[in-house]
């Protein structure tokens, strides 16, 4: 039916495509002793992974995937090369569990290193580092050194509060924790109160809120602890040191006197091809060596009890992490996200 020439053309085209395809397929074959899908930025885990390789001789390979990590593992199914899933935010850890792409790990080492409140009840995920969701307050314009989360909605802060988008995972987790403490109705009132206190529409990241305080746009803001550390030590952009100088960290508390923390963590992939090595790495990550590196690297709080935080982090004051189980926080995320939309938090101040 086809002439010789057409045939040749089709064949050439097909061949070219096949060649290109296989050339690319070859890159997929790269794999190590432990393969990690991570939504944690490579810079923040590489030093710990290097230490692991040094100690055990086992190599690691990573792919940094943000949105859609669970969907990818799920779609890959039985053939997924992922051994470990590392991610930030309790919501993402829980999402991996709910998507059914992880499996429980029964390890005495992990159980000993990681306190109960920092791991899943069914041992399907384990937190590795914690960060407080705290208040940045203007040194100049805010006198108080203690504040509760509830108080942030007090009208005395009207026109003085800045935050990033209410739909950001860190804020969602905070609101979810509020729901866990006070129930849905109280949480809606609280978010409404926060909204009415906003100085401007929520935007940017946590650092931008510190910048806004520096600029005089607002007096208090909500942000994670480690950003303050990053800004304080930013030699390349000394301007950020000024932002950090303009603010002080206040550890806000719920009525139990404890502060909301979020976590970064790790889970074993359901179809991990190198299960044994992967568990070795998990245990390593929860141990002294890795926890110390974490503490220094990114100004976070190690989850293993007894490991010191960096001096800079100590200067923020003492963090007393909320003992509310993180999976309970995760359970309220959908509701939290809906409340943010319902009160149109991201629309900013209403008047």
């Amino acid at each position, binding site marked *: *039916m086809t002439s*010789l020439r*057409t045939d040749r053309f089709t064949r050439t*085209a097909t061949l070219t495509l096949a060649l290109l395809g296989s050339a690319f*397929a070859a890159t*997929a074959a790269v794999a190590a002793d432990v393969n990690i899908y991570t939504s944690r930025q490579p810079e923040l885990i590489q030093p710990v992974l290097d230490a692991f390789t040094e100690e055990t001789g086992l190599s690691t390979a990573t792919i940094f995937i943000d949105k859609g990590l669970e969907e990818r593992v799920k779609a890959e199914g039985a053939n997924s090369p992922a051994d470990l899933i590392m991610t930030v935010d309790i919501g993402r850890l829980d999402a991996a569990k*709910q998507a059914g792409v992880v499996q429980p790990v029964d390890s005495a080492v992990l159980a000993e290193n990681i306190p109960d409140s920092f791991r899943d009840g069914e041992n399907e995920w384990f937190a590795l580092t914690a960060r407080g969701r705290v208040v940045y307050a203007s040194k100049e314009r805010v006198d108080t050194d203690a504040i509760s989360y509830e108080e942030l909605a007090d009208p005395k802060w009207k026109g003085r509060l800045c935050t990033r988008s209410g739909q950001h995972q860190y804020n969602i987790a905070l609101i979810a924790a509020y729901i866990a403490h006070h129930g849905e109705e109280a949480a809606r009132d609280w978010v409404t109160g926060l909204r009415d206190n906003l100085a401007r529409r929520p935007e940017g990241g946590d650092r931008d809120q510190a910048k806004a305080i520096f*600029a005089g746009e607002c007096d208090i803001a909500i942000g994670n602890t480690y950003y303050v550390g990053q800004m304080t030590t930013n030699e390349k952009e000394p301007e950020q040191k000024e932002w950090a100088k303009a603010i002080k960290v206040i550890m806000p508390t719920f009525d139990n006197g404890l502060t909301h923390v979020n976590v970064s963590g790790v889970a074993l992939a359901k179809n991990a091809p190198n299960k044994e090595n992967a568990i070795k790495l998990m245990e390593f990550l929860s141990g002294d060596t890795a926890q110390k590196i974490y503490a220094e690297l990114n100004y976070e709080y190690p989850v293993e009890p007894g490991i010191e935080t960096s001096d800079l982090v100590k200067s923020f004051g003492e963090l007393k992490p909320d003992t509310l189980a993180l999976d309970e926080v995760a359970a309220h995320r959908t509701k939290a996200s809906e409340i943010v*939309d*319902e009160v149109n938090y991201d629309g900013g101040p209403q008047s």
Partner: protein
Amino acid sequence: MSAIRPARGWPAILPMRRKGKGDGGYVATALVLAALVAMPFLALIWLAVSGTSSNWSHLATTILPEASLVTAELMLGVALLTGTMGVVTAWLVATFDFPGRRLFSWALVLPLAVPTYIAAYAFVEFLHFAGPVQTAIRALFGYSSSRDYWFPEIRSLPGAVLILSSVLYPYVYLTVRMVFLMQGRKAADVARTLGASQATIFLRILLPLARPAIAVGVTLALMEAVNDIGAVEFLGVRTLTFAVYSTWLNRGDLYGATQIALLMLAVIVLLVTIERLARRQQRFTLGRSDRPQPGSERLSGGRGFLAVAACALPIILGFAIPLLVLGDYALRRLDQLADPQLWRAFRHTVALASITGLVTVTVGFLLAYGVRLTGSKRLVLMSRLAVLGYAVPGTVLAIGILIPLAGLDNFVDARMRETFDVSTGLLLSGSGFAIVYAGFVRFMAMGHGSLESGFAKVSTHLDMAARTLGRAPGATLIEVLLPLMRPALLTAFLLVFVEASKELSATILLRPFDFETLATFVYAQTSRSAFEEGAVAALLIVLVGILPVAILNRSILAETARS
């Protein structure tokens, strides 16, 4: 292959052709390719209907009305602004002579090399409280706090319109300039001899004449504005795409998210269809012209200055400001240039963009030829649908690719294990294949326009002559059409290359282990609020784009000259 007979009403090459000799396999290939392009959409539709989204009442009452309005406003703004910027600049460089015209003619394409998310970051840095503009204002008037004075908020809907338009207007500029230089020139000359003023010519002749070209350019700009997440998220503009992501990630509702994405797609299809229907009765015949002749009416004095300002402004906004901000950060991080990882990312970016460009152009070319050959209504429809990949948020499209590909991989793997006891693993979904696939589905829109108009310029008589002389369709393609289509192919390739080198959302989800591109490199930094650490890589993305953009400009002019 009786189904592929030319349908009534569609122009086919050989209306009375010999029955199918040589066409069959050819058209089958085109159909397969069209099916490949359609697959991710089918997967998304399947995904959208497979889940029971319990959230629709929430979506319908709280999110969708507001998000739809914001999206509509964004689209309207971007359409008007890209349209204005693109048409006015194209008109100026095509009609008048003024200082720097040759330079502008080229430099006006440059913003195309700047990704929207990078432009957004750069603008915010440039205009924020501690940025150069406000610092100067404070120094000038002696203010100390942002509460002392009013300054427009760039993180807003108007800000997003301005930023997106500043880097997207070149789509309009490129397509419209071509029309002004070619058909427009002759018509304008005639009108001129009849005593019409330049303003009259512009409004009554050139603008109506350029309408299809404007539509093509604005559509591309709109699709990109609608699928954008990086810029709008950073700017706090809650579009439907923003709702797609919050529905999916914060409320764990991928089905609902897919439904919103498909809804957006439907709206785009509707708009494009309406526009096409509205000018169905009009005929736009391509006149033959000699070399494209830019007009020679000299603008001097105040008018010359205005022309220079009108051409310089878009370049300053869409190129100079981003470059300035990136350059400032990059200068303090030149040590990153010694990082071998950066250069690996650079090579990956160039390789990926080249392969994606080649594949996309090949597929687009074969599809367009299939249409030309047969006029098959089905192919026409499919080739129109093929451009829609650009209107879907990248990550969502990537999921539409991931699910069927991984499914196929696992199916093959299971069969191979059963039969030969070997595991093939994830052949396609775990490799560069998936990224290239995503790239061509996403960027078909870039290549399609230039290929379609390229084919339109080659008289079908040439095909017929070749066929009469005994050449099969494939031979006709290679010996006759390919050489004639070279400029159009180059244009399509370069457009796709530039887009692919900026691509982020699909690459980041689909890539294999240890595969960084410049865009993923930048993203890893920005996702931990350290955009400045990614400045060197961001600058490299722009540089990777500049060369093709420059060639693109020449290629389009050459193409214009040929027809």
